[in-house]
């Protein structure tokens, strides 16, 4: 936390968790998709479902998907902006279970090129968020830093491959998390970086044996 999170952020009301956090979840989803979203299925859980309409959570999520920031005065009119931009959207309810944060949403997104992406995002307070899942796999990152997410088979050497690539590109690791489904099963690396990872390095990772999927979240 820094002092600009105590006095700030500048945001469109009424709630840092239900409005600003929802915009940020939408922003991160748009960046993860990497191109305009043409269709969004937005499923609300818990308090997002119960009080979302009154807090403008619905309009905030759509605004975020359109790339508006938390202080953009057009957030209340995001439904009309989406229509103009050619993005369709539908709202529904979802029960993400006891373990899910009360302020959670699951977004099923379709990009202009037909690519699909499924994201579970949580608004964890004060406008800060956590991207909990991408395509059904654990992710857990804040969207504050460039983030590399590598899904691979749980076998020796993959962490070293990824981290030595980052070293070569002079990218410093801020945080790193490892998960796996079980010994020798599927594994996930979530690496938040202080610098951007070059695009060609991300593609290079995709072609490594044992690497199943690479997702890169850029701040650019």
């Amino acid at each position: 936390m820094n002092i600009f999170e105590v006095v700030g952020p500048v945001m469109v009301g009424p709630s840092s968790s239900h409005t600003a956090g929802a915009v940020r979840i939408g922003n991160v989803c748009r960046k993860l998709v990497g191109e305009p979203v043409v269709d969004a299925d937005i499923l609300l859980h818990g308090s997002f479902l119960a009080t979302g309409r009154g807090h403008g959570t619905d309009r905030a999520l759509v605004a975020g998907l359109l790339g508006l920031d938390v202080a953009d005065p057009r957030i209340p009119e995001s439904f009309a902006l989406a229509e103009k931009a050619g993005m369709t959207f539908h709202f529904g309810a979802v029960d993400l279970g006891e373990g899910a944060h009360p302020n959670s949403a699951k977004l099923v997104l379709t990009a202009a090129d037909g690519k699909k992406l499924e994201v579970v995002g949580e608004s964890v307070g004060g406008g800060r968020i956590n991207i909990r899942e991408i395509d059904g796999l654990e992710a857990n990152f804040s969207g504050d830093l460039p983030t590399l997410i590598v899904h691979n088979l749980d076998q020796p050497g993959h962490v070293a491959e990824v981290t030595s690539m980052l070293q070569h590109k002079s990218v410093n690791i801020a945080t790193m998390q490892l998960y796996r489904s079980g010994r020798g099963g599927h594994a996930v690396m979530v690496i938040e970086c202080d610098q951007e990872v070059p695009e060609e390095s991300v593609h290079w990772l995709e072609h490594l044996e044992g690497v199943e999927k690479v997702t890169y979240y850029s701040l650019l």
Partner: protein
Amino acid sequence: MFHSLEEILAECGRTHLPFWKTVQLDDCREEALDEAASFARMTEIWDAMKASDRDYDPALHSASGLVGTDADKIRVRRENGGLLCGEFTSHVMERALKVAESNACMKRIVAAPTAGSCGVMPAVLLSMQEKLSLPDERMVEALYVAAGIGGVIAERASLSGAEGGCQAEIGSASGMAAGAAVYLLGGSGEAMAHACAMALSGLLGLVCDPVAGLVEIPCVKRNVIGAMNAVTSADMAMAGIRSKIPPDEVIDALRTVGHAMSADLRETGHGGLAMTPAGQAIRRKIGTGD
């Protein structure tokens, strides 16, 4: 971020720098930000606070229809000479309502420390600037004072209604505004800390009980009490009155009271005003709340 007000005051004593500068330098070090960039950023926050007051629309209602238009009623009554409050406090009251109503109406505000408590700081600070003809630079410095105090509350207790109840939101905003007000009145760092302590003490135990789970009832009107409480706490501190309980210990009490509070009274909409027959009727009518 500092862990205690005592630590900030000790640092000021060592360096002979003012409270606001000590807070700024600490943040610049942690965030690798230079002082000019930091000041420019805080100036943007101040400009946004001014705009949140200026851009109030007296015709607007929130999506639920529950709040809006009240700030203007204060203006009308002041102009008719009917208010008990004097000129200054009537402006504080009006601005607290204005900015908090704007927040509920999805307009742009500064979360200070939260969106629900966004009316407190601009109500106190803008009204002081108007009354005392203070330059903007000094107002920006006052924001650093408020941020330093809020940072300590975040470290030792909480700034979130879901964790600490409304005392952590309106209470903290009031403590921050009280400290900033003392700074603007030329008080010492010690007086700022005590103004904060007295403001927090006055609102200790305040529950977070939003009707229908929305940042509307009673949040908008609680911004008024937070702002007024900051003004009286600042005046008490400037008059030489001190909190008998040391400021950091008052913040610790805010934490323990927050922990002792039932979850029903921490932003769930399951207690207090939200559970009154009228509160429940509103919830049913607008179809929110679980």
